[in-house]
């Protein structure tokens, strides 16, 4: 497989300080291992893009990777706040971060527009909402046929998109299934795409019309079993809901968070991919 790399090599080679990087996965298939590798390699000044920042962005923000956050819902799903995100926004710790805040629908329109090679996308949205007043990335146009006022949002074209999938074959074709979120869109929207996978198989055996990314659109595939935990990988392992609950207390205090990150992420050996 020509595009197979270890995760540490993939991040070192393809992600640079100051890049715009999207890590997608809608609760399912969140690329945690890749996020941890970014933290370990101490990438800085990143624009982090993700509809639902989740614990992985809480960790990256808390560890000082982020300059800017583009998102639509920044909570700990089913639990409450992301305390590191809040600390950065409310108290500027570890440093201030810029916020570019949209809605879910707007994020999907921005991804879709980028994947489709358009500079912007249209939607019905933001009428009456204060979000448009605080975000210059939300504008309005009139439909040239009906005159209806429509919201326009700019394409989001990250330097790097990172996703986790269930499988790749030896040629580097990627297949994911279940809740597929916006992974295909962000993969095709980005300039480079890194994919961590649970398994590398001889034959994808993907059904007709499945969510498949051909090898030639994927910059690198990394073999990282468990790479989505504590989120889940449909057909491989379940979401660790208790982790998400426990994260609330770990992340609430700056020192506890730092200690936990040191013991569980920084001091662990980098993931080594290999078929």
């Amino acid at each position, binding site marked *: 497989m020509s595009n197979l790399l270890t995760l540490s090599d993939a991040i070192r080679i393809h992600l640079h300080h100051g890049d715009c990087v999207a890590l997608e996965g809608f609760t399912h298939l969140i690329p945690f291992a890749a996020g941890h590798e970014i933290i370990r390699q101490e990438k800085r000044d990143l624009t982090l893009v993700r509809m639902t920042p989740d614990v992985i962005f809480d960790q990256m923000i808390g560890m000082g990777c982020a300059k800017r956050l583009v998102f639509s819902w920044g909570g700990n799903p089913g639990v409450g706040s992301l305390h590191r995100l809040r600390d950065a*926004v409310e108290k500027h710790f570890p440093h201030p971060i810029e916020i570019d805040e949209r809605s879910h629908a707007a994020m999907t329109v921005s*991804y879709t527009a980028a994947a489709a090679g358009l500079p912007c996308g249209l939607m019905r949205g933001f009428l009456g909402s204060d979000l448009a007043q605080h975000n210059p990335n939300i504008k309005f146009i009139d439909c040239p046929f009906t005159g209806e006022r429509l919201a326009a949002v700019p394409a989001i074209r990250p330097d790097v998109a990172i996703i986790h999938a269930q499988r790749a074959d030896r040629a580097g074709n990627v297949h994911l299934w279940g809740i597929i979120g*916006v992974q295909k869109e962000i993969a095709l929207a980005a300039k480079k795409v890194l994919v961590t996978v649970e398994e590398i198989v001889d034959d994808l055996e993907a059904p007709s019309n499945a969510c498949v990314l051909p090898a030639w659109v994927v910059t690198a595939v990394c*073999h990282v079993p468990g790479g989505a*935990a504590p989120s889940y990988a449909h057909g491989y392992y379940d979401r660790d809901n208790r982790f998400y609950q426990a994260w609330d207390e770990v992340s609430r205090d700056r020192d506890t968070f730092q200690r*936990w990150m040191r013991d569980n992420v920084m001091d662990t050996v980098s993931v080594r991919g290999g078929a």
Partner: protein
Amino acid sequence: MVATPSEVMTVVAARMLQEGTVCFVGIGIPSKAANLARLTHAPNAVLIYESGTIGTRPTVLPLSIGDGELAVTADTVVSTSEIFSYWLQGGRVEVGFLGAAQVDRYANLNSTVIGNYQAPKVRLPGAGGAPEIAAQAKETLIIINHDRRKLVEKVDFITSAGYLDGGDSRERAGLKAGGPTAVITDLCVLRPESQTRELVVTQLHPGVTRERVAEATGWDVRFAKDLSQTQVPSDLELSTLRELERQTALAHSIDAEDKTHLNRIDSKTEVTRP
């Protein structure tokens, strides 16, 4: 069986979902209410979650919007882009269930910040799918605990438009469809008055007084002339709800006190195959 105020709120919300209705469901009490409806009087209600699952019939409640249970029990699972474009914006959703940190007199919702947007006192999770649900579902139901800090005169930030400044201001802003038809709290139900669009109390839950509602509301709330009483939750409603919660707790083995698994989990993240 005697229902808690929270149980009454869930049961009342569930009752508002009619059989066969296509419902866009958020996580938490909306999801609990929608599934309670499905397990009682509305077996053919179609539940859509923003994670892309259409026609889900979860046997336990999801803890997150993208729970695997939602995918396994769905009629079909589409991309999140498609959910928001073809299904919500496409006008397929009849009822949207929403929660929020604050709701105001004209049913506007805030889930963004408490305080000033640039320097917030509390940074809330943000909009998620709410602005478009509130704009595009044919009807929106809001579920919120009754508290002066939550039911406020004016929200700090309009994340999702209700009736804006009241009257026809929603229509004038170009919002064609829908709007909130009820706010369901643990004390009562409020509905927008037909002309002013101001929320007024139309229904009191068992044992709740007008005084208690007035005290817990952040504006000088009015009561409908034909104020009604909420019917006490039936044994079937309550037992179904409690069984659903029991199964859910079992399935998720949720126990925030047990933190020993944290290390285990993370090492799972980092383990690789040789």
